[in-house]
């Protein structure tokens, strides 16, 4: 976890620099090519991220245990969002949010089933009235689109 950002930054920079130089070209006619900015920013990021990684490696004895540790609780909201994306195929986006909110409130936050249902319903109604009814945002309806 400790060095992940620096390593990813170096890889990101390499990807952009490679694409900028070899795929898109640095110069075209009398002006910069599509690869000029990616190559320059990629190279700059590689240099900076490398310096940061070296600095962190030198100072790793001063790092606390907590700073480097991966906390699995960060996966809970990500998992909830993944569930929304899957449920979206079945009951549409607003419906998926409704279901996710109920399960979140009931099983994660340990509210009663009554509070969970009422709260998720209110959130659903608010989003439906403002975004769907008033602003006419065409939310996906999932399988409900075919049924209705």
């Amino acid at each position, binding site marked *: 976890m400790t060095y992940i950002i620096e390593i990813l930054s170096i890889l990101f920079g390499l990807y952009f620099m490679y694409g900028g130089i070899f795929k898109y070209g640095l110069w075209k006619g009398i002006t910069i090519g599509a690869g000029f900015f990616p190559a320059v920013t990629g190279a700059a990021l590689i240099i900076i991220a490398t310096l940061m990684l070296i600095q962190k490696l030198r100072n790793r004895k001063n790092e606390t245990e907590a700073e480097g540790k991966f906390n699995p609780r*960060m996966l809970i909201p990500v998992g909830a969002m993944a569930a929304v994306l899957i449920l979206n195929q079945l009951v549409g986006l607003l419906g998926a949010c409704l279901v996710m909110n109920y399960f979140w409130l009931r099983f994660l936050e340990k509210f009663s089933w009554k509070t969970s249902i009422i709260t998720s319903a209110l959130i659903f109604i608010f989003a439906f009235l403002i975004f769907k009814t008033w602003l006419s*945002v065409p939310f996906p309806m999932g399988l409900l689109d075919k049924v209705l």
Partner: protein
Amino acid sequence: MNNFAALLQGFSVAALPINLLAALAGGIMGIVVGAMPGIGSLAGCSLLLPLTFHMNPTTGIIMLAGIYYGNMYGGAFSAILLNIPGDSPAVCTAMDGYPMTRKGKAGKALMAANLASFIGGTIGILILTWLAPTLARLGLKFGPAEMVSLLLFAFCSIGWMMGDDPKYGLASTFIGAMLALIGMDPVQGTIRFAEGNVNLFSGLTFIPVVIGMFGFSQVIELMVKRSNFSFLGGEKIRVRDCLLSKEEVRGIVPNAARSGVLGCFIGILPGTGATIAAFLSYMMGKKISKRGKEFGEGAVEGIACSEGANNAAAAGAFAPLLSLGLPGSGTAAVLLGGLMMWGLQPGPKLFTDQADFCWGLISSMYIGNILCILIAITVIPFVVKILKVPAGIMVPIIMTLCVVGSYAANNNMFDVYVMIVAGVVGYLLNRSKFPISPLLLAFVLTYTLEKNFSQAFKINGGSASIFFTKPISLGFLIVMVLFIIVPIVVKRVRGASGKKAE
């Protein structure tokens, strides 16, 4: 007829009951829409444009203008209360507004935002009143070379937001720039780094990235820290808790006024708009303001800089729109569509041939600005009560708004995926002490910088001399160099003096 007399005549048009109602309705809708994440002023004006189809042109454009600057008021609400900017100009507002909310001062933050919006908006409208055609001609003098120099100056100013270790800020800046480079190249149309994904052909959309990095990353942080609190706990909300002290007002007014002037001029420039105005003004305020070092930790002056600029930019965008028919922003383009729909031809003659329309519109902006602040101030004590809701219930609300707001930006599920990834990345960056603000500023500026950079070379036959031969461009470059060199020289001189004294 001089401008003052024309303005007074315009007030007689704006004060008609139907036009007052249009300004009020536009302001309310603008505030509500502006507070909704994902629905920025462009989408808001586009979605609400059909409402004006059956109105006469003056009433219709008054309502649209009300929606536009009402959006600027509304964007601050969700930024301050939920750390989800309602639209992109409110990103800087969130940087100071949300920390104030966490300290239980949400009411004050909202008051500061609305007061600054009013001051900035008023200054923008005043400048528009007296200088609209002149400003529009000034905007025309900004060609590609001038824009590049201005934007390089802005990039150089990012250093003021870099935090303790400049390497982290620089890395954030370059990451933001690289994210902006995904998609179609602005000049040659080459699709870059899309890897065959059609959704990336036009690049990453700013709103889902912002919602993810601010809103969803905050949810992840709340889960990791196992926070279960409400920002107000058992405290009662009193109206006087939302009022600003004299000292706070003294801090807000000059910052909002300065930001108003800067924001108006930025708003006039083509391709800039309220987002860039807010960022530049915030960075300048961080450097110049007495409490600049506290920006990002809950300073009302930070909110004032952002909100003053974005409202003034909204007014400034009307200068090239009315005088030259050139929209200064995407939203102004929608307004231009409205004008053409009603058979009006923007240009210098609009002020003479359609004086009632032009001056009625400008007068209504004064009235609308007053109406917006009255509406906003009235609802603050009620809106702040949202914060009494425990985090356990706020989290699903925030997550729903993140999903719905990201989708609403382009009506595309891909943006929801982008929001989720941006949220995880934002959380990891925050955890690793990378500042987010340079990333977002670079994301906003890079497209325009690259486009103008390429155009400048094309105009000058491939030579970079254009940046030094154009006076305005050279001026910005000199100022940029001075901004970099002078603090270093001063530091060294002071250091040498200190050693001598010892």
